[in-house]
């Protein structure tokens, strides 16, 4: 008999039975959907009342090009947006900064000033369409620009729903768009959470991500453990800042990955919901049930897609969609089959959207809540995953807690170690990948694959730089300078920076100028490079 294991390392028995449910309390551990501890999902009727939100990750080139792609997907039934920004924007560099050369508009849209944000959302009513912003170290200024556009549109503040990612701790662990040192970076996260709670009550000012940490190489159990540790760090910070946990926790959201190993993913999410609920109630004293809900975007893991026979990734995407549906996703996004080659084509994006729609409408996965509940196997591995996640969280504590582990680089080293182990398991065939390490057919040369390659247009950068120059000429430079001076002073103190950032944004200060004003006060992060 062959050996079988979860990615988390837990061995899988060939058969599960009633004896595997010993120790699992049907009421206290599993409970009912929509009720604490939410193991079976955060809503009573889940998809019978409302399908998950379909939110493909889009953004490239100029704001006008991105605006056109938004409208294309909305016309095909996508109901919410998920905005990708280019790297200079994510790092607070203007499009005319020498370090931005070659990167402007490449992996997302370029934003330099409020004028770009106005163009990106032209004709898109921000009191009706919810918008995720994949932005972290620059979350405060970019979200400020978004709020300013909503203001211009006359949208009521309590109808604006935006989810800036604003999860800087995971950027230090994976993904890498950090700018400032850890402590001032955390302050910015907190400032945005506090400001949103007061002014934009339906916005989700932080989306805690396990996604990118798993994509960087860690296991399923570590993904959930590190995500929960990061969430706890933010909740703890806000409580220390004097907020009541129930005043912000209901708007904390999550962003986790999902691969095609269906039952393990389902178990991970069921265990994670239970652990998060208990942590919020027992450790932080939350009284509002909404504070205890692990609301998650579940995004298909792009790193489980491969360049060999890329069309097979469409099939992988379908299994991922099913796993995410069975896991109780609030929002779903899928990678596109061409991701190992290129910025996704419109066709590949549409296939990903159609995959989710087929799963929702044709598979039956949405007909009843948490259909795998009560399965000997799924309940047993939910409990086993829970235990493993708790062990991994204890390991983080031994590193000094998540903030300390990020500062020393201990957590980054562990993630890199796991990535290397995973690679070795792929090489040995222990983790099978069809067309890669098993059932390898005639290898077609990469150049012969039927993938439409995105043609990056260098004119994008020139257009963006010209637009920026025009704004610099036409704006009231006295007002810009005054707003930046005020922001610099505020950054040296301890007040919430959002009001000063909003003023700078409204004066058409550039993102680079705003970022620099804060850098003058905060300094820059030095990456601890460390290997296990």
């Amino acid at each position: 008999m062959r050996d079988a294991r979860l990615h988390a390392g837990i061995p899988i028995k060939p058969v599960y039975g009633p004896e595997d449910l010993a120790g699992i309390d049907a009421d206290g551990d599993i409970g009912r959907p929509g009720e604490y501890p939410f193991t079976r999902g955060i809503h009573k009727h889940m998809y019978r009342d409302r399908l998950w939100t379909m939110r493909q990750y889009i953004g490239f080139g100029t704001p006008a090009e991105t605006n056109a792609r938004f409208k294309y997907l909305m016309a095909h039934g996508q109901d919410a947006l998920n905005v990708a920004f280019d790297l200079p924007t994510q790092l607070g560099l203007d499009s005319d900064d020498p370090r931005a050369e070659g990167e402007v508009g490449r992996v997302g849209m370029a934003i330099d000033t409020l004028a770009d944000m106005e163009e990106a959302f032209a004709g898109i009513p921000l009191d009706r369409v919810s918008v995720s912003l994949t932005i972290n170290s620059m979350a405060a200024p970019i979200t400020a620009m978004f709020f300013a556009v909503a203001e211009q549109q006359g949208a009521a503040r309590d109808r604006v729903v935006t989810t800036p990612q604003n999860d800087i701790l995971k950027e230090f662990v994976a993904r890498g768009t950090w700018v400032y040192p850890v402590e001032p970076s955390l302050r910015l996260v907190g400032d945005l959470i506090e400001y949103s709670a007061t002014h934009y009550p339906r916005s989700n000012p932080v989306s805690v991500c396990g996604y990118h940490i798993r994509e960087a190489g860690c296991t399923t159990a570590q993904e959930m453990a590190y995500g929960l540790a990061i969430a706890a760090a933010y909740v703890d910070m806000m409580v220390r800042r004097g907020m009541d946990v129930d005043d912000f926790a209901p708007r904390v959201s999550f962003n986790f990955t999902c691969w095609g190993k269906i039952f393990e993913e389902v178990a991970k999410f069921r265990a994670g919901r239970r652990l998060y609920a208990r942590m919020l109630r027992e450790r932080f004293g939350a009284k509002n049930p909404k504070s205890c809900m692990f609301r998650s975007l579940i995004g298909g893991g792009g790193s489980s897609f491969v360049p060999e026979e890329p069309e097979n990734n469409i099939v992988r995407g379908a299994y991922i969609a099913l796993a995410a549906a069975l896991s109780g996703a609030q929002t779903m996004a899928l990678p596109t089959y061409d991701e190992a080659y290129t910025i996704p084509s419109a066709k590949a994006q549409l296939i990903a959207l159609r995959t989710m729609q087929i799963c929702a409408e044709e598979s039956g996965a949405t007909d009843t809540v948490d259909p795998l509940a009560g399965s000997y196997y799924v309940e047993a591995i939910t409990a086993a995953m829970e235990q493993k996640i708790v062990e991994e969280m204890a390991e983080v504590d031994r590193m000094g807690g998540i903030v300390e582990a990020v500062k020393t680089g201990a957590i980054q080293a562990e993630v890199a170690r796991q990535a290397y182990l995973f690679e070795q398991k792929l090489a040995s065939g222990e983790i099978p990948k069809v067309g890669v390490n098993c059932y390898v057919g005639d290898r077609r040369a990469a150049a012969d694959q039927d993938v439409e390659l995105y043609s990056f247009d260098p004119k994008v950068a020139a257009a963006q730089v010209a637009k920026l120059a025009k704004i610099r000429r036409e704006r009231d430079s006295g007002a810009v300078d005054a707003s930046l001076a005020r922001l610099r002073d505020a950054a040296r103190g301890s007040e919430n920076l959002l009001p000063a950032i909003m003023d700078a944004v409204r004066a058409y200060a550039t993102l680079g100028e705003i970022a620099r004003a804060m850098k003058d006060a905060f300094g820059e992060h030095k990456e601890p490079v460390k290997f296990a």
Partner: protein
Amino acid sequence: MKVLVAKPGLDGHDRGAKVVVQALRDAGVEVLYTGLKRTPDEIVHEAVQEDVDVIGLSILSGAHLLLARRVLDGLRAQGAGDITVVVGGIIPPRDVAELQQLGVRHVFPMGTPLDDIVKAFKESL
């Protein structure tokens, strides 16, 4: 043999770079890693300073042609054109030949087996 694995430009995806660092180390190669967001000038400077034989550039943002050219030009300007440069990352097939024409010895697109990468580094001497 001494290798510098480097992340030029703004791209923050370091999974591949760190896996390659560990694989080279286990293969007995002396290997340095720059960390994220180094400029081509910084990479050239470190390579010359540390007297490395091979530079491995890891780029997933799509800016590989520009960044590889900057590093190669910088090496030549420093009289260090003998340092071998290899590139890995999300490299569309059409760019492989162009990178090689620039002077990149090996290109490792997404999905290249780790053993092949280690072998190529070792044969780059």
